[in-house]
């Protein structure tokens, strides 16, 4: 074997990720590092300084100070704007995660986001309700509409054996076109060609709040997302429902023999999943943005699949994976203007990170083999 040749590298790798108990988080960290190195090489080959480009990503996300700021802007305003973008991603990842736990694959998060976001926009966003009533109602409507959309998918799966991948894809299209029709017919803003902006009272992000010398956007949804993660972790680890969901997800037959009502559990899991997708929708369309672009399905729902899997399908894990992916996507605009590295490279790096992480099982297998050899 080549073992002796690169003995030092071997030792380092074994020391860091060889330990069984630490592997579940050391291996993702290892693969992410590997992919960042790979991305750096790509950026260097394109003729830019990779360290500067990565630093730009952090600067663009408000995690590192920029050289200069426009008036009323600062590192803190960049950071709150980053949190604003992070919120929908956290919810969407939670939505994918819960469905995954039940062995279901919710590819329709984007559609559920749109349905919930649009309904809340029309019912509350255009009303004149005071903020104290409007904001909770937006959250409630978002959750309920999303949950309904999810429940329908779960019901179709349970009652008619309709594969959830197909039905969610179909619903994605249906929501996309119906919402686009309604916006273009009733709610279009003739200048922006999008839906009219929602009022400030219903919006889940406080826009242009003046604190000290800064004007910042404060996303209220991020607190909600923190609660959502805690609740999900609690449901999954401490409640009967969570146990049943995981049981159905790991083996439907076994769960059935154990007396778990598989159909009911699946519908409930899809409801929860849809509910979180709905919250992602309202924090996206009535928080991060204030309007809806017709005929466009946001990519958040698809990215969230990758984020959830990158986060080891654990509620705590997705905090880190959402954070990482959002830093890259949010910072890419600044990276483009500061280093001239095209923004598309940022999504390519995201892809590479996910690609390397997907090989986590293989890395684990290899490392454990080495350990046995030694």
């Amino acid at each position, binding site marked *: 074997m080549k073992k002796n040749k690169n003995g030092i590298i071997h030792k380092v790798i074994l020391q860091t990720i060889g330990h069984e108990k630490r592997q579940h988080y050391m291996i993702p960290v290892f693969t992410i590092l590997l992919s960042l190195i790979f991305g750096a090489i790509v950026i260097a080959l394109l003729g830019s300084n990779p360290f500067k480009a990565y630093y730009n990503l952090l600067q663009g996300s408000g995690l590192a100070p920029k050289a200069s700021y426009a008036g009323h802007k600062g590192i803190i305003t960049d950071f709150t704007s980053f949190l604003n973008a992070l919120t929908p991603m956290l919810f969407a990842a939670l939505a994918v995660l819960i469905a995954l736990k039940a062995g279901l694959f919710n590819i329709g998060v984007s559609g559920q986001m749109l349905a919930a976001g649009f309904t809340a926009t029309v019912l509350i966003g255009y009303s004149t309700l005071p903020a104290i009533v409007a904001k909770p109602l937006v959250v409630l409507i978002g959750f309920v509409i999303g949950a309904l959309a999810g429940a329908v998918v779960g019901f*179709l799966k349970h009652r*008619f054996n309709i594969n959830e991948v197909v039905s969610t894809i179909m619903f994605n299209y249906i929501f996309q076109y119906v919402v686009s029709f309604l916006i273009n017919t009733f709610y279009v803003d003739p200048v922006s060609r999008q839906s009219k902006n929602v009022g400030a009272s219903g919006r889940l992000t406080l826009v242009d709040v003046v604190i000290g010398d800064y004007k910042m956007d404060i996303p209220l949804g991020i607190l909600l997302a923190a609660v959502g993660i805690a609740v999900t972790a609690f449901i999954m680890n401490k409640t009967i429902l969570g146990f049943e969901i995981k049981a159905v997800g790991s083996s439907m037959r076994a769960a059935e023999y154990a007396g778990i009502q598989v159909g009911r559990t699946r519908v409930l899991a899809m409801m929860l999943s849809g509910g979180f997708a709905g919250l992602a929708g309202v924090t996206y369309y009535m928080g991060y943005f204030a309007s809806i672009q017709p*005929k466009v399905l946001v990519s958040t729902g698809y990215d969230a699949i990758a984020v959830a899997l990158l986060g080891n399908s654990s509620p705590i894990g997705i905090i880190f994976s959402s954070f990482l992916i959002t830093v890259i996507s949010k910072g890419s605009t600044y990276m483009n203007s500061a280093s001239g590295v095209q923004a*598309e490279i940022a999504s390519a790096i995201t892809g590479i990170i996910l690609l390397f992480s997907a090989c986590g099982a293989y890395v684990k297998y290899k490392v454990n083999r080495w350990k046995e050899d030694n």
Partner: protein
Amino acid sequence: MNTIIIDGLSFALPLFIMAIGGIYCERSGITNLAIEGLQGFGAFCGALFAVCIAQYFAGNSPIPFYLAMLFAFLGGMLFSLLHAMLCIKFKANQVISGVVINILAMALTEFMTKQINASIFGAASNKFVLGVSARITVPVLSQIPVLGAVFTNLYPFEIVIAVIAVIAWYVLYKTRFGLHLRACGDNPHAVDAAGIEVSRVRLIAVMASGALSGLGGICFAYSISANFSSNIYSGYGYLAIAALIFGNWKIMPTLGACLLFGFARSGGYELVKILEMPSSYQDLVMVLPYVLTLLMLIFFSKKNHSPKALGEIYDKGAR
């Protein structure tokens, strides 16, 4: 009526060829969510080749189009090797691999399109202009009442697709290799015990899927959008996945599903025209194929079941 058939077919057939690729892949036991990315990457390769050689041919020459198809075929196949490597060699989660391929394909092709346009053609543009492929009408057959529309105003790619589809059907159901492939998706251990290498069969299946997806992609680029841009990622791949699951992972029912999508779509457009509704109503009619599919699924899904070993990583040692 004729327009419905003509437009419906030109939408359904590229979808069908992508779905056949998906069937090959999934029947061999590899989940394929990557069709969207594969078709985009294939279309990118074909379009790039077509614009590079366009200056050597007269404006109306069909040769660049056929070469574009060939290169889309090869490009899709090349990119699918990534999926194969991740799923077969690195034992990655097949779902995440599919999603990754979609993300990568989107980012890479958009980036390269911009970069190539700027550096080679000296124009800041994010698309390759292709134009719409010429159409042909088969002389005698097109005179048949109603059915004649099938042979009227055909895109040449529809004939190519029909031929490939027949071959694909024959290979999957009537040859020894097809049998091995289907067995890999249901019981890979039995295939292994029979002395056939599971990973090899799966590799070929994934490559076939990539190639056919690429072919479907370039057909859309040459008909609906008339260029290659990020517009190619408007969900054709996901629709193909829906069609193949609707078709219960079998080729003929999948053709039915694709035709349903195609005809409902063109029928809807026609309806808007006939009733002289404002164009925003088009969006509402576009819902038709998807609602119809859901309704049909309610009646036909009971007997649907996926290949038994779909999405499972093949591990020789596991029993």
